[in-house]
Structures are given as structure tokens and as C-alpha cells.
């Protein structure tokens, strides 16, 4: 079993290569990643990735939890954009149960998902800046993640691991403060994003560091099952929001940015443009919400959606529903369903097999970071160590999503 294990020490005194353990806790890797690299000077000759440092066996745990208790597990996959994971899971169960969402709920979800996409891309792009030596951009744009978290806090009470929404809608309606904060964000964020772009996009040093580094052809990207901004930077216009629309994305007018060479600069540009498109989508959603009937924040499915506490205490039926839902006794069809959403890093898929019990028979997460990251070591070969570092930043590998 251990035949192919990475070498941790240099046994050969004649060797001119140096073995370097990059990680598991290296400040430049932004997470728990270990790569054992063979270096010839500053060039990487070969590398082996080791993962699993924060493996928490979510797929096993999920087999022993009723559906609504799995939402907090999905929070901890890509914790930089937990709401997308939450919504993806809710929509998977809704697909299984054949629940149709009211348009207003779809639009509210779109707002939340696009805000999380922005916060995810802010992390990635500012950290590319940081790792190429531009600390200003990181500090400058990062405050808008704080504003996004404030919106989440207003909607669901939590900031990072949000557990936002319920199967069947939201737990409560967006209040006036939430909408005020969204509008404030829509006004202020584009100004800051423009300034961020002014600092980096045509910056000579930044271009020299990123353009032409870690180029990936679209054939290779497809061969390695890449999705998300990485695949689009390589020139394939695949986005789940368009290819397989969910949550009424077909009602929105937005563009899918596509790169040409798949290098780090293209990935940066694609993510930046996606943030602009997300702003566009949120603006449209806010306008669309004005024409939708007010006060609808969940579908009318008493069998699956928890009744308000007031009702539970005063109304027999609500009490029964409450009991059945909390005990996980919902009658879900015996079926299997695959649902994918466009996460911050690519296609986030949920493969759910239900056998009629209270818990899933099997739940598998298709985690984009896990699948994207397998190319990191092979593509680092021949690369400078400093380039490999920004390559990893631009792949935006999130340890929680890598290990599940």
C-alpha cells in the first residue's frame, strides 16, 4: 500500500535535489495543504499532494442525520460561500420531493447566492494580489466581505457558517434593514471593485507575475474534470447557472466571462468579471422582487416546512407537522437525485439516494475543490516555487471542500 509514498528526507547525499515539505501549515498556502516537492534550485521537479487533514466524514455522518440536520454539514464544505452549499442542499431535497418554489423565494435565494459568490471571489482575487506582493488590495476589498456577512447576519443570524434557509424556503422574510444593506452594498461595492481593478489589472508587476504562468488548455481542463472559473478561464463556457438553470436563473440577464489561455491572469480576470455579473444579477433580483407579492418567503408545503412556533403552541395540526418534521418522519419518495449548483469554485453536486428512511441512504458531495486540486502537483512540475504558490491561490482551494 505504501509503495508510492512521498519521500520526506533526502537519503542520497549525491543528489542535487532538495526535498521541501510545503505545508501542511505553511503561511503561503492559506489552509491545510501538504505538498512534498523535489526542488532543483527554485524549480519544482516533482511534487506529491497529501490531503485529508481536515477530513470529517460528512458523507458518513449524513447517513445518520435527517435532511434538515444535514444543512449545517454543508456549511462546512466551502466555508467561504456557505449559503451556496446550503441552497444547493435545499434544492436537492426539494427536487426529490418535487416542491415548486414561489418566484419570490427563488429571487431571494439568487440574491444570497450571488452575494456569497462575490465574497468567495473577493477572497481568491485579493489573495492572488497578496501573494504577488500587493497587500493593499487585500486589505481594501476585504471589508466588503464584512458587509456581505452583515447582510447574512440580518437574514439568518449567522455570518460564516450560515445554515441559511430551510428546505422549502427561508426561515423568515428579509427585513427592511437587510434590503437597506443590500442596496448600500450595491451602491458602494462597484466603486471599490473598480478601484481594485485599477490597482491590479493593468499593473506591470502583477501582469509579469501572472500572465502566461500555469497555462492550461481547455482540453486538459476538461480531461481533469475542472469546473468553475478555472474551466472558464481555459476557454470553456460551462456554467451550471446557464447549462442547467436552477432557482430561476433563466429569468436573469447576465454573461459568462470566458478566458483564452487558462493562466493565472485569465483566472483573475474571469473572477473579477463574475463579480460584476453577480452585481448585475442582484440588481435585477432587487427590481424583480418589487413586482412579486410581498411576504412570501417559503413554499406552501406544511409537510416539510416547519410551522411558526406560535402556531405549534396553539394549533393541533401545526404541532403534528412540527413533531413529524423534527423527528424526521417526512415521507420522501424512494428515489435518487443528482442536483448541481454553480459554487464559487465550480460545479457543486449533491448525489442523494433515499430509501424511505429518516436519513439519506447515501449522500455524496461532488466537491469542485477536490477535483480541481488533483492537477496541482502535476502542473507544478517545471514551475518556479513562487509561481506554484500563486497558482494555488488562483485555484482557490478551500480545505473544507477538499476533504469533506
Amino acid at each position: 500500500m505504501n509503495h508510492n509514498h512521498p519521500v520526506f528526507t533526502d537519503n542520497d547525499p549525491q543528489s542535487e535535489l532538495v526535498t521541501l515539505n510545503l505545508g501542511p501549515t505553511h503561511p503561503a498556502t492559506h489552509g491545510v495543504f501538504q505538498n512534498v516537492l523535489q526542488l532543483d534550485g527554485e524549480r519544482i521537479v516533482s511534487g506529491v499532494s497529501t490531503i485529508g487533514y481536515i477530513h470529517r466524514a460528512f458523507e458518513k455522518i449524513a447517513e445518520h442525520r435527517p435532511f434538515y440536520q444535514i444543512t449545517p454539514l454543508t456549511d462546512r464544505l466551502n466555508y467561504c460561500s456557505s449559503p451556496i452549499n446550503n441552497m444547493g442542499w435545499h434544492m436537492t431535497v426539494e427536487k426529490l420531493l418535487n416542491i415548486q418554489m414561489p418566484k419570490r423565494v427563488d429571487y431571494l435565494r439568487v440574491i444570497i447566492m450571488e452575494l456569497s459568490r462575490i465574497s468567495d471571489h473577493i477572497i481568491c482575487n485579493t489573495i492572488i494580489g497578496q501573494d504577488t506582493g500587493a497587500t493593499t488590495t487585500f486589505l481594501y476589498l476585504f471589508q466588503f466581505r464584512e458587509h456581505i456577512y452583515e447582510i447574512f447576519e440580518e437574514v439568518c443570524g449567522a455570518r460564516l457558517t450560515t445554515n441559511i434557509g430551510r428546505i422549502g424556503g427561508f426561515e423568515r422574510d428579509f427585513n427592511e434593514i437587510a434590503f437597506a444593506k443590500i442596496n448600500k452594498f450595491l451602491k458602494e461595492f462597484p466603486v471599490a471593485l473598480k478601484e481594485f481593478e485599477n490597482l491590479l489589472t493593468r499593473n506591470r508587476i502583477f501582469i509579469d507575475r501572472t500572465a502566461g504562468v500555469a497555462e492550461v488548455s481547455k482540453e486538459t481542463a476538461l480531461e481533469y474534470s475542472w469546473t468553475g472559473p478555472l474551466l472558464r478561464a481555459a476557454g470553456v463556457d460551462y456554467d451550471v447557472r446557464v447549462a442547467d438553470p436552477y432557482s430561476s436563473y433563466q429569468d436573469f440577464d447576465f454573461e459568462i466571462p470566458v478566458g483564452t489561455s487558462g493562466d493565472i491572469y485569465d483566472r483573475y480576470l474571469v473572477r473579477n468579471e463574475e463579480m460584476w455579473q453577480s452585481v448585475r444579477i442582484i440588481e435585477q433580483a432587487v427590481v424583480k422582487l418589487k413586482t412579486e407579492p410581498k411576504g412570501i418567503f417559503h413554499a406552501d408545503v406544511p409537510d416539510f416546512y416547519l410551522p411558526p412556533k406560535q402556531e405549534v403552541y396553539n394549533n393541533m395540526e401545526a404541532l403534528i407537522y412540527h413533531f413529524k418534521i423534527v423527528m424526521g418522519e417526512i415521507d420522501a419518495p424512494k428515489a435518487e437525485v443528482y442536483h448541481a449548483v454553480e459554487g464559487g469554485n465550480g460545479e457543486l453536486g449533491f448525489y442523494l439516494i433515499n430509501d424511505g428512511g429518516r436519513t439519506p441512504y447515501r449522500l455524496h458531495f461532488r466537491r469542485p475543490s477536490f477535483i480541481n486540486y488533483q492537477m496541482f502537483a502535476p502542473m507544478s512540475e517545471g514551475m518556479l516555487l513562487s509561481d506554484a504558490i500563486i497558482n494555488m491561490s488562483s485555484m482557490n482551494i478551500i480545505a473544507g471542500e477538499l476533504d469533506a
Partner: protein
Amino acid sequence: MEETTLNNNIHVKLTEKFGEKVTAVSEPYGLLTFVTYKDVIINVLSYLKDELKFNFLTDITAVHYPGQNHGIAVVYHLNNMVERVRIRIKVFISEQNPTIPTATTVWKGANWMERETYDLFGVKFEGHPDLRRILNMDDLGVHPMLKQYPLEDPNRVDKKDEFFGR
């Protein structure tokens, strides 16, 4: 409607090519699903990739159905990005000797997906270039996603499976 015609076409073509090796065809939630066998799985995958434009391997995973003759199902999800069709392929293999040819010969991206499946279910992918555990430690000794391994301490009385509907 459109989806159904596409699925039908794929079904017809697969049956023409592989005959009775393609069985149990169904369409849960519009996603064409069928069962095939491990001696033809690589041919099926290559045919889907090269002839039917399923250029993208979305996922490989497995499911354990204990107590059955062929108790482990290896599940492949493919995606045809041009015509926007997805397809699901299942291969049931024996629990005692869980082997199946590797798909890394068709897609390089299958590498880590198969390592994960090996790690969690013990499925041995024959011909895989680097079949090691990926998430768990090397000396774990078991493949933890198999149903015989309980999630929590089996001696606890409040966490019995029967309280969770099975």
C-alpha cells in the same frame, strides 16, 4: 419533452452497440440511468465519450448495499456539455472481491475520484496508476463508508439505527 427525446436517442444507440449489457434503464428526475457490467464498463465510457459527446466526467462514487450478491455499486456521472445532457451509469460488483477496471484510461480526472472511492469503499480499480488512500490515514485498516462500520459507538443505546428509521 426535448430531454426525453435526447435520452431516448442515447438509449437506442447504447442498446444497438451493447445489446443486453445495458440494463435497468430508467429516468429518475429526467436523468438517464442504466446499469452495465464491469467487463464492458470501459468500452461503454469510451463509447459515450468519443461517439456520444459525453466529454465530461462529473463524478465517480460508490454505494454499498450489504447482503446482496453484488453489493457495491460504482456510480459514474457523465455530462454532455454540448447538448446539456447528463447520464448516470452504475456497475454492481461483488462485495468480497470489489474490482473494476480504472477509468483513468478514459479521463485523467478519474484519478482522485477513484482513490476516494477506494479509500471509503475499498473498491480496487485495476490498472489505476496510484491507488492509495486519499482522505484517511494509510493504516486505518477499514473502508469506513461500508455499512457495517457504525458511525458512533455501537454500545450506545440512544443511537440505534432503529431510532433513525432503519
